[in-house]
């Protein structure tokens, strides 16, 4: 019998998905708008892991012909990633409640 593993999501991954919820962004843009929570050196490692998990998708930016330098990458959240993110948010909120609060 096959047993499917639950997807895991770290706080950093959750933060990135929250920032990607509305529109696609560059990695550096994510770092700049994270108030120091994301680091330039490690953000792409995290994004690569998230892409492996299916939480985000990426593509190379469209460039004008003759543009110099390496193309940057644009990232966007997948529907699956946002679904897992929302589920984790609910779980975190539920676990943060004390038993008395949970009973209403």
């Amino acid at each position, binding site marked *: 019998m096959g047993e499917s593993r639950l997807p895991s999501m770290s706080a950093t991954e959750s933060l990135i998905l929250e920032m990607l919820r509305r529109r696609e962004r560059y*990695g*550096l843009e994510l770092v700049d708008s994270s108030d120091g929570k994301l680091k330039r*050196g490690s953000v792409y*490692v995290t994004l*690569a892991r998230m892409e492996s998990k299916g939480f985000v998708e990426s593509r190379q930016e469209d460039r004008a012909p003759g543009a110099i330098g390496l*193309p940057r990458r644009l990232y966007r959240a997948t529907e699956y990633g946002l679904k897992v993110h929302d589920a984790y948010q609910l779980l975190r909120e539920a676990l943060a409640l004390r038993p008395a609060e949970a009973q209403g």
Partner: protein
Amino acid sequence: MTFAATITSLSRRFLTERSFELIVAPTLADFELDTAAGAHGVAMARWSVLVALAGAVWEDTVRGGDLATFAGLVCIPACYYTFFFLLGLPDGMSRLSSTIVAGLAVAVITLSLAPAIVCFWPDRETRHTPTEL
């Protein structure tokens, strides 16, 4: 050779295509954007590229499940050279100064790591080379 070209060359030798495309190449693209941001900005951007390169190596080896293979490849020559040096010291290590012991340890580590690196990271000819560099 420019910094970006050096990093690309190291990546070509040691990283998988995927790790280069997803981790190192975007960091290099950011680095190229930052070269106009002053000496401090350039230094920070270079540091970020090096951290990303280390992260990509980590992803390929540790998360790829190959750490045990690499450790095994290092251990085999390490055991050989340690035994070799011990045989050459009939009075044991006690009469040697700490400097010589440290020197021998460095020699063993170097002689063990070098062949392991060559065996563990074979040349990957399939890498796409960015033509813009």
